[in-house]
């Protein structure tokens, strides 16, 4: 930050030269060199608009709130639509959103919400209770509309709107998530024209009518998502005029773009690598935000995929149906080494299903329950389960063949591959083979149940209902051809009973208690083995963003919050632009060096050519 940084620049330039040289020498085709000689200004565009550009990597699954489950898409929905209630950015308690007040009846089966009268859709119409009622009713009656958030309305008996400001929800059974209904409310007058909710992706005509702090004005798959500030947002207009999520499929390219000032923010999804974070910490005008994450990072096991109609499908390894095998596999995973080596301290060791950030629901196994790292014990457990080693030291399955598990990994997440390498060696010691199957798109084999183990991870909301619901039998697909809300086809009766009980429990302490028992059950089952809670490591330019809200206020993340706080609250910095020169000199030097090297090679080749040509004559 100070002047003594000046001395650091020259070596960086030299290092870049070396890097560019290696790249230029090595890569024949123009591969992934994101050097753009004419950097575009991220903010203060020609017309004086303040633009906040966020570099993201995750593809949008759908822009329809009825279908979207990915972090980026749901974050965008937070910006586009209001929810009945929100979470306070400081401590996650429920605060008014579209609803200003809510009140349960004495039997807790009828909830009455007062809808605010000062929220307008971006086409001018007023947002009313009728819109909310229509949204919920649609999800209750149309299976297509229940794809993403069906778990919230499964227990609803009737939803009505007696007046524009009054919404009444009648329940079949008590439901604890009534102040945490993470369902975007959509405008009825726009959405009632939609015929097939399972197909409609809400990405054809722009701007998309909404009432959140931003209005979606443009989207191109894997290229950008553009939103403009909603001037009439009831909580106040956002400070930035435009918010653009721009795609950088390569994290390093995103980091260079941040250094150049081409983007204002690099989303920590996946988190910046330790090397990137360390190098950015020393850079001018860049702040690295390293906060306890809301995600868990787990190793999911295929429990034999099946549909609600009882049909089994997929080809998970039969040995994994034995709980001892699953536990033994996890006991051979050294979680401490993963934190230490792969995450290099930017994560916390995994325990229960819910990260420690959500203290009320955080659970950790007791000493005698914990599957401690103990390869010898794991080997004994496998022996006892009947999977013994053959002459070559490989454990054989019941079919007499050596066991080799296919581990599904995300090719876009370096951590998956790194941990995969460790698994290969740890389980190799046990006599079990591992085949890493790293794909850009894991969805197809995942939904088809064609894997043995898989790297898995979900962002957990302040109310854990959703992440708990994806492991119930009710979330299984109706038939093998359908897509269910299920994560990895877990279906356990005891877990389901507990799930129903926590959903019906209004007393927070008692509910937390049941949730912890569910986590305990999940831990013992060994289908979801949480290895770590990765930190959210993200970075932004302080000369473009003056201030931004983290959630929770103390040590919180910025990208992928449970709300619109970060982008809504971001304040543009006054100055800017000067930051470009310093880092772009390095780039220019690199380009020149690359050109010189290439030129040298070319001249050399030409000389060779002339030499042989002379030979010809």
């Amino acid at each position, binding site marked *: 930050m100070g002047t003594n940084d000046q001395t650091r620049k020259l070596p*960086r330039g030299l*290092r*870049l030269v*070396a*890097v560019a*040289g*290696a*790249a230029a*020498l*090595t*890569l*024949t*085709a123009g*591969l*992934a060199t994101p050097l753009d000689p004419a950097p575009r200004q991220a903010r203060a565009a020609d017309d004086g608009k303040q633009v906040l550009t966020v570099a993201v990597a995750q593809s949008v699954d759908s822009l329809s709130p009825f279908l979207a489950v990915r972090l980026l898409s749901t974050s965008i929905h937070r910006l586009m639509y209001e929810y009945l209630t929100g979470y306070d950015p400081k401590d996650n308690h429920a605060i008014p959103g579209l609803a200003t007040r809510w009140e349960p009846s004495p039997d807790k089966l009828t909830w009455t919400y007062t809808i605010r009268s000062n929220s307008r859709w971006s086409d001018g119409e007023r947002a009313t209770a009728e819109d909310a009622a229509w949204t919920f009713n649609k999800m209750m009656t149309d299976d297509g509309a229940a794809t993403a958030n069906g778990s919230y309305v499964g227990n609803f008996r009737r939803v009505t709107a007696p007046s524009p400001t009054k919404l009444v929800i009648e329940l079949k059974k008590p439901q604890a998530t009534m102040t945490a209904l993470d369902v975007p409310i959509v405008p009825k007058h726009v959405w009632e024209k939609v015929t097939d909710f399972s197909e409609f992706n809400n990405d054809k005509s722009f701007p998309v009518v909404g009432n959140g702090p931003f209005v979606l004005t443009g989207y191109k798959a894997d290229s950008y998502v553009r939103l403009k500030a909603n001037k009439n947002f009831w909580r106040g207009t956002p400070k930035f005029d435009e918010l653009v999520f721009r795609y950088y499929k*390569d*994290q*390093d390219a995103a*980091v*260079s773009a941040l*250094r150049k000032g081409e983007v204002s923010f690099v989303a920590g999804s996946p988190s*910046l*690598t*330790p*090397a*990137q974070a*360390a*190098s950015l910490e020393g850079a001018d005008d860049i702040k690295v935000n390293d906060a306890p994450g809301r995600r868990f990072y787990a190793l999911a096991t295929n429990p034999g995929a099946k549909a609600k109609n009882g049909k089994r499908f997929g080809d998970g390894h039969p040995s994994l149906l034995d709980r001892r095998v699953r536990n033994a596999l996890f006991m051979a995973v050294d979680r401490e*080494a993963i934190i230490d*080596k792969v995450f*290099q301290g930017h994560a916390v060791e995994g325990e229960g299903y819910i990260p420690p950030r959500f203290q009320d629901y955080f659970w950790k196994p007791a000493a005698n329950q914990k599957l401690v790292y103990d390869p010898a014990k794991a080997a004994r457990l496998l022996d006892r389960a009947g999977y013994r080693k053959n002459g070559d030291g490989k454990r054989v399955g019941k079919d007499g063949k050596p066991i080799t598990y296919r581990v599904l990994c995300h*090719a876009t997440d*370096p951590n998956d*591959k*790194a941990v*995969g*390498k*460790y698994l*290969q*060696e*740890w389980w190799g010691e046990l006599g079990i083979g591992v085949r*890493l*199957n*790293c794909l850009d798109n894991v969805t197809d084999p995942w939904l088809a149940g064609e894997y043995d183990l898989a790297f898995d991870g979900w962002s957990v909301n302040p109310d854990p209902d959703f992440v708990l619901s994806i492991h119930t039998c009710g979330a299984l697909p109706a038939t093998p051809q359908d897509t269910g809300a299920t994560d990895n086809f877990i279906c356990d009766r005891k877990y389901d009973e507990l799930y129903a009980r926590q959903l019906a429990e209004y007393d927070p302490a008692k509910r937390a208690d049941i949730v912890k028992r569910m986590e305990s059950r999940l831990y013992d089952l060994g289908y979801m083995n949480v290895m770590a809670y990765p930190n959210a490591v993200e970075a932004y330019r302080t000369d473009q963003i003056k201030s931004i809200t983290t959630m929770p206020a103390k040590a919180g993340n910025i990208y992928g919050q449970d709300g619109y706080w970060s982008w809504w609250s971001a304040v543009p910095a006054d100055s800017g632009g000067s930051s470009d020169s310093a880092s772009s000199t390095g780039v220019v030097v690199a380009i020149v060096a690359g050109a010189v090297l290439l030129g040298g090679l070319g001249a050399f080749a030409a000389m*060779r050519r002339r*030499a*042989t040509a002379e*030979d*010809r*004559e």
Partner: protein
Amino acid sequence: MTTTTGTASGPRALARQRRRASAARFWRRYRAERAGLYGLTVLALCALLALCAPLFVGADVSSVTDAPGRPMQSPSAEFPLGTDQFGRDLLGLVVWGSRVSLLVGLLAAVLSVSIGTLIGITAGHFKGWYATVMMRITDWFLVMPTLVLAIALATVMSRSLTTIVVAIGVTTWPTTARLVRAQTLAVETRPYIERAKALGGGHWHLMSRHVLPNVMPLVLAQTTLIISSAILAEATLAFLGLGDPAIVSWGGLLQDAREAGAVSAGDWWYLVPPGIAIAVVALAFTLCGRAVESVLNPRLGVSR
């Protein structure tokens, strides 16, 4: 024709003698190519290093669980080229990676040249509709962008070394096929082929006994040249993440470095050594290939 006076040499011994003489002649001419000698020296060193690697680095250099260092250490006395993201010794990894890179390069080149030679000779020999069909197929492969085709192949097949070899092999053969066909056509117009035909030589005899030996120099030169592009292609595919992540190769190391964020962090020791290694080996093969070409190609060697 040499007029050897009646030593009890049968045709076998004669042929052996002639081969020895031509090998000596080849070596004499090759020695005159200075760049070719440099290339050969570098290659010999690399080959030696790759073959002896098990003696001084061993397979456990790629083990992540017993990695000796801390992640991303810069070069020091203990680790002359620093360490990678797992704390493994990069010098050892680069040496170990040479085995895979060279192996894939060689196998892919052999596969590619074999396909090319087979198609080239048969198309040149049989002519007619067979040649037309074969050459149209060759043209089709020739106009397809090699890298894109290789990526497509590597994506649909499972991730392994074989996949990479096949992906490179089946996409780079058309140039060889065209060259070999042209040479075959030229050879087949020579009078002795006609004589062989008149004496009852069949297709197989003509192709294997008369055409193949004559196109062999071309094939040899072509192989050496293709090896360098095959090594580059292997590195490219591995760099794009299409290789087997469990195998250490130079391209794979570059890919690891990129994913670990070494480029933006400026950890040059992770990127430069494998990059230079690829460039040097590819260059060495090219130099050798050119030297062999200029020595063997009859049309290039007239003046000497």
